[in-house]
């Protein structure tokens, strides 16, 4: 294939078109001349414009034919050349004289003769025809031509006009064009990116693939500028990167398959395979064609594979490290080193999850580019901002965690700046697992984003599993060594202890044979340690009951049987080998192995004397006494009969509000109430009988307060100089009794009041009649009427008092289901006039409630009392609210709440405590002091509760809660 094709092919095509047009023009001209359409024509040529007139001018025609650039001839009807121009003669290389008079077909190549004859016949038939055929020249060479034959309509015999156009040049050019097109289509359809550069390295032609690769149209740009390629020579790890230069390459030998790297302007990186070849023209090298094949994916796959291989190597290396490792620290360090070296990652560190409050991840080893990165870390495994990076996640979830791109991963935020500073682009954290829990993680950083393939992660996970196992093993080994050391230490410690303690120690095996005697034991038993070894314990440790003289029960046998600590019985004596009898005491205990199995018995004993025993008993008794004394809820004083206090227990200190020392200093003189004359009698009784039972006496506390206590006191029988005084504070009880008494008094006063009220109603009515009659009697003097008016007023006051007290229906015991809303409405109706007269507005709010079991009249009275109190409290134009709503009482009982609230004077706090007491009133003239007392009685009777809240100047709220379902036994 001719090489510099495409540049020319366009020009060739243009020329070709021009030639075709020229031919067509010539034919048209001839046709026009023949048909007489044209009388004259102007032909432009090298000799300037020539004008031909055609009217029967043989010469003119000839001149025209001669001037044509085409070969032309006139043929007779039988094919003889009558006339031929010079151009045709030149074309076939045969002199004019030879052609004229010969057969035209002589000029035609043999293969084309048939076509020519057919053409001739057509033309003779009046059908102008043309075709491409080949002529034969003088050297028998073929000449492609375009032949046109047409009948000449002239006077005389029929003749034909033949025009011959040389196609030799055309043919060659067509071929060139075809080749050019082919090259173009190859160029366009090629998957490879192809660029043609001129000798200066400027891109002069590209295909679509190249434009795609560049990301823009680089036509007519310098190749190095449009496509900065990087050539890596040497190995991957130790390679040298060079910039590709088209200038250096232009005249170089053809290159095939050079790997180059290319980073597009948008940052996308490509691995490319570059091939290039020279383009030579006649004058030497005219340019270079460069072909770029995208091998990025293949390269990635290769890289991944290579990485996996390296990781595999790392796994292998770490296996070896595990086998070699003696300490955890060296192992961790070595594994970090292996991962950075073998896998080519930028940095590796190992962190352990601390069980502290912030859940710190403590770096324990690292390798690779680090530069204090770890100190800036602050990684945790808590579920917070610092624990959601790959490390924290891996530890929390126990799964490998990848940060594909540190630049963009939102969870990497806390560490991004520091990581980017060091060129880390992605990271992988692998948990270190033991028993399903992560105790740490290996964290690997790479300089490439998304550097960890699934295969690599799996292999690294395997490595981390191996490492975790290795760490566990090392720890176990260390723990075992520590335990062994401790054991040795303990054994030594025990041996020293046993030989140096003051007690005798004897140990036996499970068969009751002596295995050990300490020095004290050898002294007491009279047996040497060596001698006693293996002997039945009964013969070494012979014990008897001092009193019965019989052999004491075999304590070792008992321990073996009962598997628990057994104390020696009292009065046990050891019979030594040399016949001494030594009183001993203490205990025997089983020796258990780790699994709790008995592997022996140890008996610890020491010599005791009677005196020591007595001391022990005394101490024990004192302890018991002390415990009792300290913990007694009653106040206890230990004293002398003449009134000195020797000790006071905590309860006594609390009762008197004094320290024990102060109580002792004060003595009876300081504690007793000097005004209480009963002390003398009590004292006397105790002296006489030795005891005093439940005397009530008055004392004085540290703060000067008087109180009554119930006192029990005894003189200790064995020691007449000691007395015990036990005291119980009666203050609370007294107060309770007083309160009860008061209540009872109040109740009976109330009962009496209401009885009186009943009894005086009839007399009052009669008095009323009398006064009225006297008043209305015409004979009554005006002055007497004044007195009667006074009497009427006072009568009204008495009436009011009895009404309040009486509870008109109070004694009625019949409870029925009543509708509280209805009852309240009834009462409100009764009060309607009075409320209106005083301009008091009533606001009712009733929620749907069930009926309550109650005595209707009593409820009416309650409501009346509360309403009239409210009316008295509010000024004219005030406001009283009545609400009824569902409620819940203590213990979840459904209930109904009745609230009467006013905007009145309110009740002062100190009055608030007394308002339910009888005869307490804040209303000087109109108050009976019985309304709320009666109300409270009724409320109590119904098992209801009443509460009051009040603020002076703001108003009061009384609310009563009636139980719903509960049947009040007193009521039914």
């Amino acid at each position, binding site marked *: 294939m001719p090489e510099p094709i495409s540049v020319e092919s366009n020009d060739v095509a243009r020329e070709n078109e021009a030639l075709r047009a020229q031919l067509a023009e010539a034919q048209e001209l001839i046709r026009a001349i023949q048909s007489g359409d044209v009388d004259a024509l102007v032909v432009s040529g090298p000799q300037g414009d020539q004008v031909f007139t055609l009217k029967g001018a043989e010469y003119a025609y000839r001149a025209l034919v001669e001037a044509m650039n085409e070969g032309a001839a006139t043929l007779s009807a039988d094919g003889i050349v009558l006339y031929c121009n010079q151009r045709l003669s030149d074309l076939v290389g045969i002199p004019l004289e030879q052609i004229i008079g010969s057969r035209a077909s002589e000029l035609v190549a043999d293969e084309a003769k048939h076509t020519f004859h057919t053409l001739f016949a057509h033309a003779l038939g009046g059908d102008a025809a043309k075709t491409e055929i080949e002529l034969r020249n003088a050297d028998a060479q073929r000449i492609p031509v375009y032949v046109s034959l047409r009948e000449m309509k002239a006077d005389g015999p029929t003749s034909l006009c033949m025009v011959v156009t040389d196609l030799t040049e055309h043919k060659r050019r067509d071929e060139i064009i075809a080749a050019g097109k082919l090259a173009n289509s190859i160029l366009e359809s090629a998957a490879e990116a192809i660029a043609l550069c001129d000798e200066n390295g400027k891109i002069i032609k590209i295909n679509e693939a190249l434009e795609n690769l560049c990301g823009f149209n680089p036509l007519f740009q310098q190749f190095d500028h449009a496509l900065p390629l990087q050539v890596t020579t040497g190995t991957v790890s130790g390679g040298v990167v060079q910039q590709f230069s088209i200038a250096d390459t232009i005249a170089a030998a053809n290159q095939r398959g050079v790997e180059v790297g290319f980073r597009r302007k948008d940052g996308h990186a490509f691995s490319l395979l570059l091939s290039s070849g020279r383009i030579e023209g006649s004058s030497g090298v005219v340019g270079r064609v460069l072909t770029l094949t995208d091998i990025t994916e293949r390269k990635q796959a290769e890289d991944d594979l290579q990485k996996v291989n390296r990781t595999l190597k790392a796994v292998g290396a770490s296996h070896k490290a595990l086998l070699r490792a003696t300490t955890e620290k060296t192992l961790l360090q070595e594994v970090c080193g292996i991962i950075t070296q073998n896998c080519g990652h930028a940095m590796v560190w190992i962190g352990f999850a601390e069980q502290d409050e912030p859940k710190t991840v403590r770096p324990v080893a690292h390798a690779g580019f680090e530069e204090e990165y770890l100190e800036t870390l602050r990684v945790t495994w808590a579920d917070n901002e610092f624990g959601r990076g790959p490390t924290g996640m891996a530890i929390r979830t126990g799964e490998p965690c990848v940060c594909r791109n540190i630049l963009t991963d939102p969870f990497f935020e806390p560490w991004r700046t520091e990581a980017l500073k060091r060129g880390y682009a992605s990271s992988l954290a692998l948990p270190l697992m033991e028993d399903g829990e992560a105790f740490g993680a290996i964290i690997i950083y790479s300089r490439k984003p998304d550097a960890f393939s699934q295969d690599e992660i799996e292999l690294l996970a395997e490595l981390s599993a191996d490492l975790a196992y290795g760490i566990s093993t090392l720890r176990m080994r260390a723990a075992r060594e520590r335990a062994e050391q401790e054991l040795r230490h303990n054994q030594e410690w025990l041996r020293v202890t046993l030989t140096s303690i003051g007690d005798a120690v004897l140990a036996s095996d499970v068969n009751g044979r002596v295995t050990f005697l300490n020095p004290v034991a050898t002294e007491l038993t009279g047996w040497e340690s060596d001698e006693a070894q293996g002997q039945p314990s009964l013969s070494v440790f012979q014990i008897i009951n001092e009193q019965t003289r019989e052999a004491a029960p075999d304590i070792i046998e008992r321990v073996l049987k009962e598997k628990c600590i057994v104390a020696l019985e009292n009065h046990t004596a050891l019979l030594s080998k040399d016949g001494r009898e030594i009183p001993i005491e203490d205990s025997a205990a089983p020796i258990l192995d780790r699994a709790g199995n008995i592997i022996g018995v140890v008996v610890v004993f020491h010599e005791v004397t009677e005196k020591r025993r007595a001391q022990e008993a005394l101490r024990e008794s004192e302890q018991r006494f002390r415990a009792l004394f300290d913990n007694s809820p009653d106040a206890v004083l230990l004293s002398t009969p003449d009134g000195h206090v020797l000790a006071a227990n905590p309860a006594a200190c609390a009762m008197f509000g004094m320290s024990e020392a102060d109580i002792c200093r004060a003595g009876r003189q300081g504690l007793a109430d000097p005004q209480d004359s009963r002390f003398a009698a009590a004292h006397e009784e105790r002296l006489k009988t030795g005891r005093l039972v439940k005397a009530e006496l008055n004392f004085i506390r540290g703060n000067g307060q008087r109180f009554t206590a119930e006192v029990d006191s005894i003189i200790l029988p064995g020691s007449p100089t000691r007395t015990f005084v036990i005291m119980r504070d009666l203050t609370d009880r007294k107060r309770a009794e007083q309160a009860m008494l008061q209540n009872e008094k109040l109740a009976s006063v109330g009962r009496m009041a209401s009885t009186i009220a009943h009894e005086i*109603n009839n007399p009052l009515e*009669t008095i009323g009649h009398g006064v009225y009659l006297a008043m209305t009697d015409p004979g009554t003097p005006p002055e007497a009427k004044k007195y009667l008016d006074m009497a009427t007023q006072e009568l009204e006051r008495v009436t009011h008092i009895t009404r309040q007290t009486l509870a*008109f229906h109070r004694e009625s015991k019949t409870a029925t289901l009543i509708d509280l809303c209805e009852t309240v409405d009834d009462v409100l109706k009764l009060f309607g006039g009075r409320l209106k007269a005083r301009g008091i507005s009533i606001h009712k709010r009733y929620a749907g409630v069930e009926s309550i079991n109650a005595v209707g009249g009593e409820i009416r009275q309650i409501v009346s009392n509360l309403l009239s109190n409210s009316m008295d409290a509010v000024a004219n134009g005030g406001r009283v609210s009545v609400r009824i709503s569902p409620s819940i009482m203590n213990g979840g009982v459904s209930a109904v709440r009745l609230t009467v609230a006013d905007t009145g004077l309110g009740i002062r706090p100190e009055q608030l405590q007394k308002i339910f007491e009888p005869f307490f009133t804040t209303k000087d003239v109109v108050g009976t002091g019985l309304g709320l007392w009666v109300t409270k009685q009724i409320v109590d009777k119904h098992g209801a509760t009443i509460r009051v809240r009040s603020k002076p100047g703001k108003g009061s709220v009384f609310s009563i809660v009636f139980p719903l379902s509960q049947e009040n036994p007193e009521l039914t």
Partner: protein
Amino acid sequence: MAIIATSARILIVDDEPMLADTLAIIFRRAGYDATAVYSGEEALALVEAQEPSLIVSDVIMPGLTGVALAQKIRTSHPNCRVLLFSGNAETYELVEAARREGHAFDVLAKPIPPPVMLAKVASLLEQNREL
């Protein structure tokens, strides 16, 4: 004080004679034809002869109670109105029992100021006339 145009007949029943008598006087002074008796039985006997427009009766009395009297009168003399007044809480039981049997009565609580009593009686008699 209201002036009573027609002399309506009123029977007063109370076991306290002084109370009954003084009330009768008050009624008479107010222009009514009032008679006082001291037991339910007496009252029952007199109703036949006098046919009063209104009976004002105490409730708790030995023998026939005011409530029982009222119930009887209501059956026998439907045109005669009965007004009960009482100073005793036991009244409630009786009135409530009557109410349960379908007989509702007004009960005024003693002591009642005479002007109040007179106003109440006047209004009852007014109603009676309208009926």
